[in-house]
Every structure is written in structure tokens, then in C-alpha cells.
């Protein structure tokens, strides 16, 4: 397949990843850490966004976050696997596999029942994790020193290397998600919310399409989970608690779902918001967070990312008046 012109989203993703990699040396450690948390959450949220495109609200993304994180922690603890890249690949595969298994069952559900069933499954796993001592119970598990591409860094070097790994894993996963969303199958996913009947009459299985989206969502959730686990070097059953999944959906609400870049923007916005609230209002950070959430939902209901789109559209519109020929070409691209 040849691309006539480079895909804007992929170019932006690459530029962001390269920029962050270069900037990494100057970013203070605590901001790097917050960024890693935001990136991890963004990947899981991207999974939630893929499903939301099909009109499916998942309160179970936490399950895959959990699956990715615990695959890494358990492989480290019991299999002695301590190579970051292997752990990441393994975790993504396992969580994608879990999603594939659950997908047979869950792809029958829509609307609130999809939301509540994903919540129930996730909470069941949470309940089991709290009880099973192999999983470290509610205290969770720690991950000790890991090697990155064979190198055994320590202290600040390890943190820096981990930051780079996070950036590039997230970048690659986002590209995969982007390629999926702009494909015909991606369009089918979007069409599901509009009209399942027509899709069936066009020879497409809606269930299989949802299943595919669910596997991708699972893999993205798992990628987020393993990155969070390797960054924090600690996992606990809270990953599967429904409020974790709620955060992921909120990130998508915050940013809108226009592009795979949106959840990254939303996750950073949420992290900044939370840090700001926690630092300045230790007694009322929930209230501050809630108030800002409410204001966003009320006044920017399409998500903060929409601001950029509106600005972009304005900018483009201005360009059009000068060069009207460009119009058809631009609008033809969704």
C-alpha cells in the first residue's frame, strides 16, 4: 500500500515521540514520572475510545490494565523474566488474549448492559486478586530492577530509560490504533453505533467487528497496564477496580474522541489537574476535580480536544478562501 501523502496523525505522533525523547534529559524526574502515568492511562483510554466509537461504554478497561500489569509483575516474580521489552510484548499479548476470550461473550451486549457487564467482570477479577496470595493480595506486588534491551540501568538512568520505553511503546501502539481506526474496519466500528442492521445487510458481522475492536482495546489496556507497572514498579488490585476504568472513560470525555492523539491530551490534562488539586487543596481535591470536570462537561461537551479541531477548522477555512481548490481534497479526508 502506498501513501500518497504522509498521514498527519502518524507524523505528529512521530514528532511528539522524538521531541519527548530529546527533551527527556531536561524534564525533571517527577514530571517524567507523571508523564509516564499519563501515557499509561492514555493507552488504556485509547482502548476505551475505540469502543466508544462503536457506542460501547466500557467500565472494564481496568481489567486489561490489571492484566497487563499483573502479567509483568507475575512473570517477573515467578518466571524470572526481567527484560522490559519482553515483559511489554508478553503483557500485551496476554491481555489481548484475555480480551479475545471475553470478546466471544461480551460482543453480544450493548449500551448499559455492556457497561455493567464489563464492570462486573473487572470487579470479579478485583475480588479474586484481593484474596489470592500468589497475587500479593490487596498489597499487590513489587517489581524489582529490570533490564532494558539487555542493559541493567539503576537509579536515574533506569528512570530515564523507562521513560523512553514508555514514549516509544505508546507511540507504536497509538500508530497501530490509528491504522485500525482509519481502516475500513475502523469505519465499520464507527458505523455500529449508527446502524447495526445495515451493516449486517452489507455482509458484515457486527459481533465479529466488535470482537476485533474489543481485542484491540484489550491490547491497548494491557500496554497501558504494563507501562504503569514498569514505571511504578508496583502493581495492586486497584488496577481492576471500576473507578480506574472510570478514569479512562473520563479521559476520553475530557479530550473528545476525534483522534488517537486525543486520549494523550486528555490524560495529561487530567494528571495536571489532579496534581494541581492535590498540591493546593489536599482537603478538597475531589471537589476541585469534580468542579472542573463539571465545567468541562457543561461548557466544552465535545471535549477539550475539540478546541484544537475548532481552531484547525478556522485556520483551514481561512486557507480555503485563498486557495479554493484545496477544499475538495481536504474535505474528502475524514
Amino acid at each position, binding site marked *: 500500500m502506498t501513501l500518497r501523502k504522509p498521514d498527519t496523525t502518524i507524523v505528529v505522533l512521530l514528532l511528539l515521540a522524538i521531541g519527548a525523547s530529546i527533551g527527556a534529559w531536561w524534564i525533571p524526574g517527577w514530571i517524567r514520572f507523571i508523564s509516564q502515568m499519563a501515557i499509561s492511562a492514555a493507552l488504556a483510554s485509547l482502548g476505551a475510545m475505540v469502543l*466508544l466509537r462503536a457506542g460501547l*461504554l466500557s467500565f472494564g478497561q481496568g481489567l486489561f490494565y490489571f492484566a497487563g500489569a499483573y502479567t509483568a509483575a507475575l512473570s517477573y516474580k515467578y518466571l524470572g523474566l526481567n527484560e522490559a521489552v519482553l515483559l511489554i510484548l508478553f503483557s500485551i499479548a496476554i491481555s489481548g488474549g484475555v480480551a479475545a476470550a471475553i470478546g466471544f*461473550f461480551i460482543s*453480544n*451486549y450493548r449500551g*448499559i*448492559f455492556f457497561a*455493567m*457487564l464489563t*464492570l*462486573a*467482570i473487572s*470487579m*470479579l477479577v*478485583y*475480588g*479474586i486478586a*484481593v*484474596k489470592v496470595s500468589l497475587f500479593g493480595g490487596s498489597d499487590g506486588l513489587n517489581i524489582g530492577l529490570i533490564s532494558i534491551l539487555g542493559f541493567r540501568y539503576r537509579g536515574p538512568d533506569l528512570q530515564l530509560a523507562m521513560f523512553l520505553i514508555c514514549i516509544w511503546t505508546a507511540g507504536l501502539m497509538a500508530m497501530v490504533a490509528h491504522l485500525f481506526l482509519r481502516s475500513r474496519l475502523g469505519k465499520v466500528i464507527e458505523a455500529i453505533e449508527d446502524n447495526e*442492521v445495515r451493516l449486517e445487510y452489507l455482509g458484515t458481522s457486527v459481533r465479529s467487528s466488535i470482537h476485533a475492536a474489543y481485542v484491540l482495546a484489550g491490547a491497548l489496556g494491557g500496554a497501558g497496564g504494563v507501562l504503569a507497572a514498569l514505571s511504578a514498579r508496583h502493581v495492586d488490585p486497584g488496577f481492576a477496580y*471500576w473507578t480506574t476504568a*472510570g478514569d479512562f*472513560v*473520563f479521559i476520553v*470525555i475530557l479530550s473528545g474522541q476525534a483522534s488517537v492523539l486525543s486520549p494523550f491530551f486528555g490524560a495529561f490534562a487530567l494528571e495536571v489537574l489532579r496534581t494541581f488539586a492535590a498540591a493546593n487543596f489536599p*482537603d*478538597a*481535591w*475531589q*471537589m476541585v*476535580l*469534580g*468542579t472542573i*470536570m*463539571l465545567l468541562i*462537561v*457543561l461548557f466544552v*461537551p465535545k471535549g477539550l480536544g475539540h478546541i484544537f479541531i475548532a481552531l484547525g477548522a478556522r485556520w483551514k477555512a481561512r486557507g480555503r478562501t485563498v486557495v479554493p481548490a484545496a477544499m475538495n481534497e481536504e474535505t474528502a479526508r475524514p
Partner: protein
Amino acid sequence: MQLLGHLATIVIDGVSYAAWLFIISVGLTLVFGVLRILNIAHGGMYAVGAYLAAYAIGAAAANGFGAGAQLLFAATLAVACGAGLGILIEWTVLRRLYRYPEVLVLFATYAVFLIFEDATKLLWGGQSRYANAPRDALGQIRLGELIYPVYDLAMVLVAILLAVAVSLTLSSTRIGRCVTAVVFDREMSASMGINVNRIMTGTFLVGAALGTLAGALTAPKIAISSGIGVDVIVLAFAVTVIGGLGSIGGAMAGAVIVGMARAVTAHLFPQIELFAVYAAMAVVLAVRPQGLFARPEARKI
């Protein structure tokens, strides 16, 4: 014989827990039926109701009123404040969002819940409060081999009365029938001349008041402390979803299923009590993907 006694105990516990579940869920079910949103702020209303009841019961007791008056005062205060808060939320938040996707409204209610969480904490402080005076005053009763507080068993009666009252209102009053019509088909109702917006406002107000009332009725049983609203939300969601959303009979069935699941596991399999609720929800949805009492919605093509 002992087995029979044990079984009876489990059933009594299950029923009394189910009654409580129904009381905390009925407002949520109603709001879902009419407004089509899962109202997370319901948990916040519950917490506010509990704190208000603690205040009311304390104040009434200090002025020498008996258990009945204490409860009446608590319930009245809770319902009044709940309705007030309900109107406030509907006017300032929900009304502006009806055109938007349900997810967005869901998160608006979550934001309201977060605000409530800290507001109750800032108003009443971090330490727990209690309001057990009326529960103690009503005394205990022996059922089979065990002693139960009269108050807990009275909750079963309250739940039944509540169910009957809500069902009768829905089926026999003009407004109630309008509400039922809106639940069934919003567009159709609007075209039939029902003021759907007013029905939605009213329902949210009643739902909020039922939330605070549930908190007030629960207050004498528990320690009222920061964070009591969170668990209540998930329980109420489970009950509502199992029932099939938006039907009073469904909420009752959901409450009984969750209540019995909890009682059975608490007695016989305490190790898995933590996820009994979720297991019950998963099993019901696996067998009936639309919940127990859902109307099948065949798409007209």
C-alpha cells in the same frame, strides 16, 4: 431441624438486606427509567441524607423527642433537602445536557458526586457520626433462635410500603401514567402532548429525595463517615441492572437476588463474599442480557 433454623436465618438476613438494597436503589431505578442515565450522584445524595439524619436525630433527641419523632424529623429533613438539591442539580447541570450523549451525563453526575463527597466532609468533618438512638429505642425481637432489632425488620415493611406507593403512583395517578409513558417511549410521549422536560425534572427531584431518604433511614444502622456513598452506588447499580432497568418490580427482584447472594455467601462461603454481588450480576446478565424484567425491543425496519 438445625439445618432448617440455619436456612431460616439466611432467608431472614437476605430479606432484610434486600429491603435495604431496594430502598437505596428505588430512586436510581426511577431516574434511569425516565432520564436514561445512571445517576452516580445518587451515592452523594445517600451520604447527605445520612449526615442530615444524624443531625436531625441528635437535635430531636436533645430536645427530648422520642424515637418516632426523631425518625419523622430525620426523614422530613432528608426528603426536603434531597428535593431541593435535586432541583438544584437538574437546573444547573442536567437540564443543559439532555441533548448530549448519555456518557457525558453520567460523568456530570460523577462530578457532582465528587463535589458532594468533599462537601459533606468539609461540612461535617472526617470523624464518623452515629444516630443509633431510634434503632435502640425500638428494641429487639426474637425470630427463631436469633435476636433482631425491630428497626431492621421494620425496614422490610418500609421497603414494601415504598414499592407499593411508587407502583400505585405510577399506575393510578395522571402524573404517574405520564411518567410511565415517558419511560416507555420518550418521543411518542412528547408527540402525545406530555411535557417531557417537566416529567424529567420532577422524576429527578423525586429520585434525589428517595436517595436522601435512603441515607436517612440507613443512618441509625451504620457509622456515618466519609466515603459511605461509593459502595452504595455500585450496589444500587447492580440491583438496577439485574432488574432490567427502570422497572420497580425489577428493582425488587434485583434486590432480592443480590440480598440473598450476599446472605448465602456471608453464612456459607465468607471467603467469596466480596464478589458475590458482581457474580450475581454477571450470571443474571449472562442468562438474560437485558436484565430480568426488560421489555424486548425489536427494531422496526
